[in-house]
């Protein structure tokens, strides 16, 4: 509904200020559409609107000035929308809005037409009885209000899950992170490495020192895994002493091990060069030691059944 028509200023510029409606109820909001049609090249300066249009009329919101090129007329249309309101009843005068037109070297002030706005009070319903003041309405609960509780519940849920997961893993004696890695028995690893050593034919290629270094390393790693002795960081004497202390190795196996380790020490540290059959013998000694001392259920049982393992080994 157009209640006001536009002014036409000069030949080429037109200004319009239109209210959406001339009548509103107190507190209602109404749009005031401002349009300026100008030639290309002219400059129009819009007034700087503050919070109020007049003393009584408040500006609630305003849009940015938008420009549209009207191709048919070869003109530029500038538009701005104000949202206004009044909080008292009565007839209000909206004064003309002033714009400054700069065209070439001349500047002029152009105005829109003035408007009127009628603000009506609320109609009182006198037919009904007087009612009490309405109770305070509860605002609907939004996500902002509940999200701390949601987060807390989520966190508590995760915590409970982690705890249950941990207890389950602990109960099953499984690693906390990652999958359970089934460890190969020490003797299987040792025998595989001994096989590889044999296949390498080191001493046959005159690499005797390397052969004995690897042979002792395999034995020491086996002892480390099997008896939980830090054999890699211990000397021959220390290893033998600790093995005696475990009470799990028979004297004849200790003797075999002692011979091999001492021979290896001679090769490694004293340039000894054993005979080929000695190399074979020490290899077999290593295999024998691994086989005789490998972990067996029955071995433990035998030990438990009071089969004494002598500690009286001369090293």
């Amino acid at each position: 509904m157009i209640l006001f028509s536009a002014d036409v200023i000069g030949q080429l510029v037109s200004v319009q200020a239109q209210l959406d409606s001339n009548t509103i109820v107190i507190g209602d909001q109404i749009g005031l559409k401002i349009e300026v049609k100008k030639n290309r090249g002219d400059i129009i300066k819009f007034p700087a609107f503050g919070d109020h249009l007049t003393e009584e009329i408040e500006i609630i919101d305003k849009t940015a000035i938008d420009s549209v090129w009207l191709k048919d007329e070869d003109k530029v249309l500038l538009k701005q929308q104000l949202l206004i309101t009044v909080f008292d009843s009565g007839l209000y005068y909206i004064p003309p809005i002033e714009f400054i037109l700069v065209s070439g070297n001349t500047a002029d002030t152009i105005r829109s037409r003035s408007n009127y706005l009628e603000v009506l009070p609320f109609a009182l319903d006198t037919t009904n009885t007087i009612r009490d003041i309405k109770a305070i309405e509860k605002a609907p609960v939004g996500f902002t209000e509940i999200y701390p509780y949601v987060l807390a519940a989520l966190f508590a849920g995760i915590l409970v899950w982690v705890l249950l997961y941990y207890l389950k893993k602990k109960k099953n004696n499984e690693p906390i992170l990652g999958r359970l890695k089934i460890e190969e028995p020490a003797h299987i690893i040792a025998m595989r490495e001994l096989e590889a050593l044999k296949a390498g034919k080191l001493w046959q290629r005159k690499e005797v020192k390397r052969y004995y270094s690897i042979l002792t390393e395999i034995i020491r790693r086996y002892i480390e895994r099997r008896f939980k002795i830090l054999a890699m960081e211990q000397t021959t004497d220390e290893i033998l002493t600790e093995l005696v202390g475990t009470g799990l190795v028979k004297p004849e196996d200790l003797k075999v091990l002692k011979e091999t380790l001492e021979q290896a020490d001679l090769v490694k540290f004293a340039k000894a060069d054993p005979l080929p059959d000695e190399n074979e013998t020490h290899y077999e000694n290593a295999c024998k030691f691994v086989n005789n001392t490998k972990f067996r259920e029955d071995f433990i049982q035998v030990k438990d059944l009071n089969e004494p393992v002598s500690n009286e080994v001369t090293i």
Partner: protein
Amino acid sequence: MGLEICCNKKKHMSEIAVNIKELNEKIQKESSFVDMVTLEMKKVIIGQKHLVDSLLIGLLSDGHILLEGVPGLAKTLAIKTLAQTIDAKFSRIQFTPDLLPADLIGTMIYSQKNEEFQVKKGPIFANFVLADEVNRSPAKVQSALLEAMQEKQVTIGAETFELPKPFLVLATQNPIEQEGTYPLPEAQVDRFMLKVVINYPTKDEERLIIRENLGKQFPAATTILKSEDIINARNVVKEVYMDEKIEQYILDIVFATRYPAEYKLGQYSNMIRYGGSPRASIYLAAAAKAYAFIKRRGYVIPEDVRAVCHDVLRHRIGLTYEAEAENITSEDIITDILNNVEVP
């Protein structure tokens, strides 16, 4: 056929072992005095086997020894007895706060008879010098002693005098009385090959000590060696074979004192202020060779290195305040290093 194989085997065996066998035989011959010296010392010194071994290691590898132990543990008696077993000159210098370098190395004295200055050599001109309570004297006296230890010569006036050979200094320190002492600076402590910590004897040993001391006649060691024997033995010790695997083991141990994190000992990174110097590696190798010699072996095995490791390294590891606050000692660090460095 079987006989041929047997003969070949024996021949082969004799060929392969020749170097080490020769060396072992030589060492068996040259090291026979070790047992004799040990026996002579045992006549006088009850227990303290480690001290006796350390003295021999120092003697055989031309390294000086710093002894640390409470009073009355036969430190002085041990060195005196060692000197007795060898036909060598022994002198004992009690370090006191008012001792002067001239009291140690000697000085120029004006002779009225000859009307000229004459050199009066100090007590340092001896084969075995016992510097008792070395930390009781100020730095200038300590420096004079340590310079003589390093240079093996002394300059008095304008003249330089060679110190006698063998020249072995045994300095003692008392660990419990620190008041009024001048602790040896790190650079000077480093010049001692070994720092030997002496502990109390066992009950049985102490019982024997009482009996010997209260007996009618205190036993005395017999002179069984000449200074030249020691010098010859030192040359043989140098011939003891040390494989490159053992060298690598020594390097690993010393480097672990410098860069513990590289040897899975990261917990000591902020506890070690400085690690062993290259002198530590040299002395560790030399001491291990001497130990192998004492054990009548012509080659070094890891046991030899481990046996001397604490004595060689304990005074070469500087600890931080964090270590002191947590009661971590250099002994703990060395033990952990030995337990973490792989034995070849």
